[in-house]
């Protein structure tokens, strides 16, 4: 059985300007121990998918559809029931590690609280477990770190603390929302290496939300590519990068400058801008920016299987092959 089964998730927000359609009918499956990447640009709905799952939507947000975690429906759970799952069976780490930690509490107090709350551990046992966890995520002097406050640590160290906190209760699922975006490249690489090791060693499934295709290439087993609140393509990692099935995936891959290919030509940018989520155009949401759009794209395409595990939301049978290496 899948660990997580999302069906037709719809998330919208009522704003003075109108209703914002953030997620429009998303479905996905995640197996135990698997690492799933959710890729998309800002406003594609990747973060709101996670927030809806965790019951953390803003007050003007509404979610419908079905989110089953180990068979249990998460949408519509009471606050109390959700609290017993959050941080214990599903935990989440955020983009900005420094402001995600409580500035008034020492690192130790914040870690110990998780264990005394969810695992009923005595204070002393919880402390030992917390120190162990800090060591595991590669923080030096864990005992001293326990006494320190978030402002005394660097961004990279705070993100290690967040990861330690996320893994304290050995959750079945860890949601990481742009965990390295706010960090410097060398520190980013440390954290990515750490995430990779942790996913290999533990049976925790990871849902990695990111805009960085390079990070996905290094860490994930499967990928969902989102655009304007919908899944455009879903595939295993290697086929997605080798032979993207959706024009948007292809465009994304081509717009990243590659250091390992020494061309200085023009980057293949995707023209135009993402659509307005309040007033979504009919048909395929990508059609206005798509180089291959044709008459039929005015009909909204369904997500359909391409081969095996792979799915795409596009009327085209096959994409013209891209030139490998942008002409280098």
């Amino acid at each position, binding site marked *: 059985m899948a660990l997580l089964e999302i069906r037709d998730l719809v998330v919208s927000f009522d704003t003075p300007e109108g209703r914002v359609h953030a997620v429009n009918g998303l479905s996905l499956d995640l197996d135990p121990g698997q690492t799933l990447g959710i890729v998309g640009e800002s406003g594609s709905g990747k973060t709101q998918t996670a927030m809806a799952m965790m019951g953390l939507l803003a007050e003007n947000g509404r979610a419908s559809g079905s989110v089953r975690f180990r068979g249990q429906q998460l949408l519509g759970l009471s606050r109390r029931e959700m609290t017993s799952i959050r941080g214990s069976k599903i935990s989440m780490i955020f983009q900005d590690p420094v402001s995600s930690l409580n500035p008034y509490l020492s690192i130790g107090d914040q870690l110990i609280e998780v264990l005394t709350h969810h695992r009923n551990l005595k204070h002393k046992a919880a402390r030992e477990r917390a120190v162990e966890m800090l060591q595991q995520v590669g923080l030096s002097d864990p005992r001293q770190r326990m006494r320190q406050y978030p402002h005394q640590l*660097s961004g990279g160290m705070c993100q290690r603390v967040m990861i330690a906190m996320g893994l304290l209760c050995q959750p079945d699922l860890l949601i990481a929302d742009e965990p390295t975006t706010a960090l410097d490249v060398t520190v980013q690489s440390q954290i990515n290496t750490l995430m990779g090791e942790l996913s290999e060693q533990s049976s925790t499934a990871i849902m990695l939300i990111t805009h960085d295709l390079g990070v996905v290439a290094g860490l994930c087993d499967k990928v969902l590519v989102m655009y304007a609140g919908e899944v455009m393509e879903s595939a295993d990692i290697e086929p997605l990068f080798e032979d993207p099935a959706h024009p948007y995936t292809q465009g994304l891959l081509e717009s990243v400058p590659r250091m390992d290919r020494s061309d200085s030509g023009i980057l293949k940018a995707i023209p135009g801008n*993402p659509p307005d989520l309040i007033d979504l155009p009919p048909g395929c949401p990508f059609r206005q920016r798509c180089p291959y759009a044709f008459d039929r794209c005015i009909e909204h395409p369904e997500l359909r299987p391409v081969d095996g595990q792979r799915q795409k939301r596009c009327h085209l049978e096959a994409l013209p092959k891209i030139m490998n290496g942008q002409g280098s």
Partner: protein
Amino acid sequence: MRAPVLKVEDLSVHFQVDAGIGLFRHDYQTIRAVDRVSFELGPAETLGIVGESGCGKSTLARAILGLVKPAGGRVVWLGENLARLDAEQMRKKRSELQLIFQDPFGSLDPRMTVGQIVAEPLKNFYPSMSRMQLRERVAGMLKMVGLAPEQINRYPHEFSGGQCQRIGIARALVVNPRLVVCDEPVSALDVSIQAQIVNLLKELQNKLQLALIFIAHDLSVVQHISDRVLVMYLGRVMEVADRNSIYKNPAHPYTRALIESVPIPDPKAERARARKSLGGELPSATNPPSGCVFRTRCPYAIDACAAREPPLETLESGNQVACIRHQEIPALAAEQARAEAEAESNS
């Protein structure tokens, strides 16, 4: 390279920070945000400056444009030392030297229309321009950056991030500058939009023959747009190299580490890489390490690295590097990679 338009010589910027001993007692410490940086920039050349946060890249940009006062050194623009100019003289110079900012929304006044935003530098530098001329010039500029003329009366909030960055570019270029400093111009943008802006900058640079300084923390973007790349760490220049050799033959261990840190969007290549992330974090700028500032995180550091600061050596290729072991490093790195591969296959 043709005769340089900009020469930066031993430029230093220091900041005094309060170490905060008590309410009424102060103890000031000096941060050398930019420490004796020198480089030259040719006409129509693009120099990329990379480094992580706190390495001094933005301060360097601000010092070149006279927005912070340097503690020492010279900024020579077309033969004239800018560091000597007073505020009024510098203000006049700024029509030749312009800046593009990181935050596309934050750098535009929300109460002004796009037309007013782009016209403002013109009014400032050419007060005698007629309204007709202004309108024409602004419309032409907006067209050049890819905005529609009918958008001229709209406000910044009606535009996306990429479009706002286009407005910022139009505002910088409208006065016909010869040098444009771009401080992280694409890091706030989504990838597909980032590529649009990088292409636009490249195209405009070509068309207008601008000298461009492109500052970013993203090495792949910098390498893509630049002719030469300057790598900074803790206020100091580690390496200056042309765009092709910096990826293929990085001379400085820090450049090497930066390159290894950038993930490649190709699962096979990415997983096959002998990845060694750099340990540790940036040392405190108030108390930098002795000798080579990078030695505390350098996998190849030896005792001699602590003894004295490595000079910026010019190599045969014209590239420059500040590392006493730069000749041995390719061999050392290859050796290390071999040892790791062996350990991997044994396990």
